[in-house]
């Protein structure tokens, strides 16, 4: 962890030097980043909103890593999950309009479950084909990302919100929203911050216990560490791998909670600033430990929030600079983590 943090610091330094190259004052950039992420109560809440989604995708990437697979498909999985959640929600809204809050709550839970299952299925596909046909999971998940994006775009075209100029679906019934009873949302009512944050934290805590303390977690980790040895000890490695990918998809699908019923109630095309790819950086910085993911998701959530404001506060730096920072941090953190292995 110490080395990973050192890598983080070095990476940040490189990123800030790059902004100097673009004619900006690095200290100014740093202060904008900092102020934007933690400057006010609402800023912090928005940072935590990003953090929530990043916890989910970070967990998704890390559980696949634990089983020895590389899931760059979290983006597609969360897209499909969000589309299906919205779709099922819209189905209820139009055909069985909720009249009572309790019914609406059941509807929303059903929609979320459908979304999570869809995300799980989107993870199952590459897992299954990896095991059964030895197909390259990286290419498969990448292609599935594009397929998911295409499906999402056609979903939005078919369900375009008539009251909006933006490409987004019609909203689901407002009765289904969680915001009226959401205690976390009441803390920062002007932001999309919501109770999904608690679900994400709980998911990370539980996954941490399961991975390191349960037989099931042991099976996943030993499959990832040495598949042959695991199979010698009658751990069904292929099944474990498929299961891990299903779970990866399921966790990525958690983003739907945060996005739909927690906050926006509709599918907005391009809502994700590539949570799935940032999830890789999150998992890497946390060295795949679910508890550490909480912290690293917060760091990357802050970076994401801060980069959005760099767009406004500086001349040369755009929102895309977040990607540069993530990439450099992935490289420096993974290199520095390795350095430790060598010295030992």
């Amino acid at each position, binding site marked *: 962890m110490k080395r990973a943090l050192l890598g983080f610091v070095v990476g940040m330094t490189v990123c800030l030097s*790059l902004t100097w190259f*673009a*004619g900006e004052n690095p200290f100014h950039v740093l202060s904008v980043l900092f102020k934007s992420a933690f400057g006010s109560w609402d800023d912090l809440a928005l940072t935590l909103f990003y953090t929530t989604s990043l916890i989910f995708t970070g967990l998704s990437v890390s559980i696949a890593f634990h089983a020895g697979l*590389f899931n*760059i498909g979290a983006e597609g999985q969360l897209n499909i999950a969000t589309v299906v959640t919205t779709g099922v929600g819209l189905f209820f809204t139009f055909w069985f309009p909720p009249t009572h809050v309790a019914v609406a709550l059941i509807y929303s839970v059903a929609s979320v479950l459908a979304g999570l299952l869809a995300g799980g299925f989107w993870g199952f596909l590459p897992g299954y*084909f990896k095991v059964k*046909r*030895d*197909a*390259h999971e*990286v*290419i*498969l998940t*990448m*292609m*599935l990302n*594009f*397929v998911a994006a*295409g*499906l999402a*775009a*056609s979903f939005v*075209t*078919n369900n375009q919100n008539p009251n909006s100029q933006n490409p987004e679906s019609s909203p689901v019934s407002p009765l289904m929203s969680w915001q009226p009873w959401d205690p976390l949302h009441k803390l920062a009512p002007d932001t999309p911050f919501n109770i999904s944050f608690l679900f994400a934290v709980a998911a990370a805590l539980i996954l941490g216990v399961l991975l390191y303390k349960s037989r099931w977690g042991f099976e996943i980790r030993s499959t990832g560490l040495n598949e042959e040895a695991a199979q010698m000890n009658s751990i069904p490695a292929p099944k474990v791998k498929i299961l891990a990918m299903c779970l990866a998809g399921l966790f990525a699908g958690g983003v739907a909670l945060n996005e739909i019923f927690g906050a926006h109630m509709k599918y907005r095309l391009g809502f994700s600033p590539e949570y799935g*790819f940032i999830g*890789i950086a999150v998992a*890497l910085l946390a060295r795949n430990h679910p508890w550490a993911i909480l912290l690293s998701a917060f760091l990357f959530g802050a970076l994401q929030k801060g980069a959005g404001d760099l767009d406004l506060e500086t001349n*040369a*730096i*755009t929102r*895309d*600079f*977040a*990607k*540069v*920072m*993530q*990439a*450099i941090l*992935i*490289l420096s953190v*993974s*290199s520095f983590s*390795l*350095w430790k292995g060598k010295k030992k």
Partner: protein
Amino acid sequence: MIEELLLSTLRLSTPLVFAALGGLFSERSGVIQIGLEGMMLVGALAAASATTFTGSPWTGVLAGASVGMIWALIYAFFVLKIKADQIISATALNLLAFGLCPFFTKIVFDSTGATPSIPFEQRLGSEFMWMAFALVIITSLLLRYTRFGLWIQFAGESPSALQSAGVSVGLVRSISLACTGALAGLGGASLSISLASSYAPNMTAGRGFMALAALIFGAWRPLPTFAACLLFAFVDAAQIRLQGSATFIPVQVVQILPYLVTIVALVGFFGHQRVPKGLGKHV
């Protein structure tokens, strides 16, 4: 109609062929290569910028190839020198390309993504296509009949054997990666100064990954890989045609056809596989 379709297949196959050949150099020498996408993207941007500045597409070709090569050498530094994880490093470099390109266009052209449009007479026509086809044959011969080709194959199949013969595996792999970068950069250049008239954000649209899929589908051999590229390009050409004519299918669904075919190719017809034995292994 059919003629037109075949012609556009050949044109669209060009970037894929370049990138897939690039991937071949890397993977046959034992280095996993999922970073083609990023190399293509920086190559496309470099080629379009250089052409815009000098007015000559050939400087664009040169710039695309050299920047792609530099990008690949950065990758080589991380995976061969530091021995960082190959898949993670390549993913990071892809991400870096996606972030740096808009950063660059903002500073140089003060635009949020695209470069200025290149006039038709400054663009290349079929030159890229012939170059790509020639390179398929050259690569095929190089691998089989030259000493360096054999070194590449040994670096990929049995690096320790190559090492004990007194040849530096790291050097062979670095040179292979340089070729990879140059080829993928050319693939990007063919996108931005031949198929299109400027660099546009995310213009590679997953072609780097499709090229890798074609390489796997083609069992890591030049000619079958070339055939796989043609197949994927044909689907792409058909898809573009369908978008124009068939209005009963939503455009977005038609657009995912190439990706679906890639998935089916990877999953469905993956019978007898010949993965380079030393792929991803350090000496």
